[in-house]
């Protein structure tokens, strides 16, 4: 399971580091989850995003600025994400002390922002953008195992006459972004990080349902998976089911009751995961 821990819960941790939302959650999961399964731990979701419906972006920016990580909230937020995440990871690793290999620690960045990756790699090394050292960012020098971005592809219109070519161009741009991220792992002394995707799939904002119903989406999804395969160890599709509509066809399937024959995206994922 991959959990995205609510951003405000860090305040509960700060108020009582030994008994708080994080310690309770870690204990619950350790007690209840099949011990053969791993726990992917992420602090919130898309903390780089301060758009409508993403108050966590504003929160981490403000916290980062107030802690002197940077004057710009956007940059300070990336550092604060690391500050919060490494503390969260430590709580889970302590709770799973005899089985820490089950805890998969994930720092999350933003696709297309090599800057964000740069800032977060610096933060893991207790460095700020201005070059100063701040050993309070990552006091235990914890080395997270994974770094996550998104692997969304596609153009703006899922019914465009050039949808196939647009798709390929978008896939190539994504690969370039992935390579930029990996370059920054090397450049900023965090080359132990393994790249994964917290979300991904088509990202059409118009006529997404047309794309999803197009049988060609099977081939396009296979192209996407094959292209990103060398760069990512994991991609988590967004989402399994989700009602297809023009403004978004996030679901690999429109609904649970949809037939396999009509669910081209789901069929591509299923075939991929089954080695076909």
């Amino acid at each position, binding site marked *: 399971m*991959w959990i*995205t821990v*609510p951003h405000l819960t860090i305040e509960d941790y700060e108020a009582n580091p030994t008994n*708080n939302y994080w310690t*309770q959650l870690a204990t619950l999961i350790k007690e209840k989850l099949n*011990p*053969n399964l791993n726990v992917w731990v992420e602090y*919130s*979701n*898309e903390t*780089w*995003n301060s*758009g*409508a*419906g993403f108050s*966590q972006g504003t929160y981490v*920016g403000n916290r980062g600025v107030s802690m002197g990580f940077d004057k710009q909230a*956007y940059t300070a937020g990336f550092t604060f994400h690391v500050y919060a995440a490494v503390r969260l990871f430590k709580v889970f690793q302590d709770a799973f002390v005899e*089985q820490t290999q089950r805890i998969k620690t994930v720092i999350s960045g*933003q696709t*297309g*922002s*090599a*800057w964000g990756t*740069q800032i977060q790699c610096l933060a893991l090394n207790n460095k700020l953008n201005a*070059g100063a050292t701040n050993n309070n960012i990552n006091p235990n020098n914890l080395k997270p195992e994974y770094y996550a971005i*998104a*692997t*969304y592809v596609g153009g703006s219109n899922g019914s465009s006459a050039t949808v196939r070519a647009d798709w390929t161009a978008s896939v190539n741009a994504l690969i370039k972004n992935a*390579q*930029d991220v990996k*370059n*920054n792992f*090397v450049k900023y002394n965090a080359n132990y990080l393994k790249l994964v995707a917290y*979300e991904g799939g088509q990202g059409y*904002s118009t006529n997404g349902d047309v794309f999803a119903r197009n049988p060609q989406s099977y081939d396009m999804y296979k192209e996407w*998976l094959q292209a*990103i*395969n*060398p*760069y*990512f160890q*994991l*991609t*988590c*599709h*967004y989402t*399994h*089911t*989700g*009602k297809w509509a023009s403004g978004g066809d*996030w679901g*690999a399937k429109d*609904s*649970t*009751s949809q037939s396999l024959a009509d669910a081209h995206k*789901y069929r591509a*994922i299923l075939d*991929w*995961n089954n080695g076909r």
Partner: protein
Amino acid sequence: MKKFLALVLVISVIFLQFNVIGKNTDSPTVRSSNPKQNAINVSTTKALTVTFNETVVKGPSFSKIKLINSTGWTFPAAISISKNVLIVKLKYKLSQLKTYYLIVPAKAVKDLEGNVLGKSYAIKFKTVGKVTPKPTVKPTATPKATPTPTLKPTATPMATPTPNSNVTPTPTPSITPAATVSPTPATPSRMAVGTNFWNKGWGYGWSDYFNSGVNWSTTTDPWKQSFIDDLINAKYSVLRFMDWGETNSSSVKTWNQRVLKTANQYTSKGIAYEC
């Protein structure tokens, strides 16, 4: 009459003798176990058994019987007794090629006369498994870093998964931009594909996931079988619970604010971790 009294006397003596001589005062002992002590290649799924020399029932330390791994972590198991056999049913599959210990402490069981197990009993065993040889990989040279032209940071996402997201303009970096390295196919094996779940407040809502008519205060399995089948067939390796946790703009700060398992998951804000 004398004969009758004599007969009663004889029967009484025999009865008394039987009671004294036949009284069992011995503690139960272990006759055998499966797996045997120091066994290897033990099944990761089969129940473990300990057979005693007589019928036993739960003793005062029954609850202290445990299956632990080599670091002392207790593995979940359902423990019961059937006549003279203690049965340890695994709740999950054991890990392959790992050492485990079944600990049956003194007084964990007792016989029908109340004689408790005198000494603790432990079985050590190792599970079956295949050792996967590490592939021989030719060492690769450290990628040579090549300076690149000034890299302008960008805050523009490839695409955002939800509408209406926007991003604060990015400041100019004051640090040297990243060098490039040769393309680095990092994954020797095939990339895994997991999935997120859509917010149950959207689209078809909870009906994609849950059976209807669930009693949330008692249910142990509210899931729609076709949903579970889809997950299994797709072999999703990771399930991300971002929207099910209502992570975006969450107001949850403390543990008592979380969604409880007993809440009505059709209408709750998010889905309980325990579901």
